[in-house]
């Protein structure tokens, strides 16, 4: 598993496309921080910054994952990997960890925002740490969905669009609950990324929100493994 992880990480770090995606993401994150800079300095809080992150991650994560399995399928290297003594779960997990590492690296660069804010006044680090944990958990969920989308097609653009649709739908599904009532509204609220993310971003770490993110990752990765394994069985 770690051989695939190391190879993929090295490949992605050296990829021009991934470089452009990361630079664009950091530029937009920077713009989001500075647009509300004076408000942020006054309140010494990154809440606005974090509240916009789910939408941005729903674009960034699919862009990171779009070539993870789609490219391996297009080049047929996935077939070769699946004839080696490696479990399919390890292949999928290696792809997931590669993208998660890159996300962690990118978020690490954004730490300059809270650090610079802390020099201007007494910053409450609790919500900031909570926010970053939430970003990693949420990003993990989006990455898992992106890898699932990437396993469904050989075309990177299709993989990106499918993953973006899934992430976007999951982010804004709570909007539908405004027109719904009773248990439907509750289900839609509970399914929505936003309703879980807003709690953690406020610095409130609820085990249910963490479980939501981990469940999302687990189901998406399991679906990916099943998708890859299903190709081995006769189509009847």
């Amino acid at each position: 598993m770690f051989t695939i992880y190391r190879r993929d990480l090295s490949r992605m770090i050296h990829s021009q496309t991934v470089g452009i995606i990361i630079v664009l993401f950091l530029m937009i994150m920077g713009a989001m921080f500075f647009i509300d800079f004076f408000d942020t300095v006054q309140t010494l809080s990154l809440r606005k910054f974090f509240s916009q992150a789910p939408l941005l991650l729903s674009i960034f994560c699919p862009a990171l994952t779009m070539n993870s399995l789609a490219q391996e399928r297009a080049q047929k290297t996935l077939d070769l990997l699946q004839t080696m003594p490696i479990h399919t779960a390890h292949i999928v997990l290696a792809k997931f960890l590669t993208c998660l590492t890159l996300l962690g690296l990118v978020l690490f660069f954004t730490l300059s925002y809270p650090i610079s804010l802390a020099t201007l006044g007494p910053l409450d680090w609790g919500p900031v740490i909570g926010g970053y944990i939430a970003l990693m958990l949420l990003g993990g969920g989006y990455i898992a969905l992106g890898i699932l989308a990437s396993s469904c097609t050989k075309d990177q653009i299709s993989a990106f669009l499918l993953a973006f649709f899934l992430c976007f739908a999951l982010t804004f599904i709570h909007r539908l609950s405004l027109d719904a009532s009773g248990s439907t509204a509750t289900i839609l609220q509970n399914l929505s990324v936003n309703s879980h993310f807003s709690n953690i971003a406020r610095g409130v770490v609820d085990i249910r929100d963490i479980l939501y993110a981990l469940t999302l990752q687990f189901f998406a990765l399991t679906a990916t493994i099943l998708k890859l394994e299903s190709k081995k069985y006769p189509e009847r």
Partner: protein
Amino acid sequence: MAQDDHPMIHIANLTYHYGEFCALKDISFDIGAGEIVAFIGPNGAGKSTTMKVLTTLLRPETGTVTVAGIDVSKDPLAVRKHIGYLPETNPLYEDMIVFDALEMAAAQHGVPKSNRAQAVQKAAQHCSLNTVMHLTIQQLSRGYRQRVGIAQAIIHDPDVLILDEATTGLDPNQIREIRDLILAIGKTKTILLSTHILQEVTAIASRIILIDHGTLACDGPVDKLLKDLRQKTDNPLANIEDLFTHYTANKI
């Protein structure tokens, strides 16, 4: 290691469908240790499907398939340790340098870290890759890429080598180089080789398995099959192409 009391490859009553299309219909054959077998047949006959079942890329629908005595349905990961596979398309990570690609293949095949350098060196030497180890795969000629594919397939010293159209698209010199390489490897391993170049069959293989429309058309030593055909057709000059046509042409 392989169990000695089993044939290296055993296929019994294998059937496989793609939707309504029956790719393999109840085919059976055994291949012993150290045999080089040419697996031939027209396009769509079921050669690649059979190879994919042997390499655990596809699961048998019905029937029993074992490699080195291990059932491919029951323990595919153990089967893969005994198999080296070169697919028809020879998929390679083109951005990698040859040394890294071989080292990664060794790691993925479970070669212990302490033996990896030796395994890479041995495979490179066997496939005459020593002069290109520092180049990226995309810089290599088609012949050298094929050598890299074969080196990756033998890096873990497998008992069985499965080569799907290993010489397709190569020029005559490259075909001869790869043919010599397969013959050298075949001294110690069981090789199942699918090909459309029929001259290759007589040059490399001692036995032919010919399938057509997913069924076994003929199976036996090259010399015996040719002798039988010459007697049957009353043509003393009948060659491998005649054999191929005899078993497949009337069904197209």
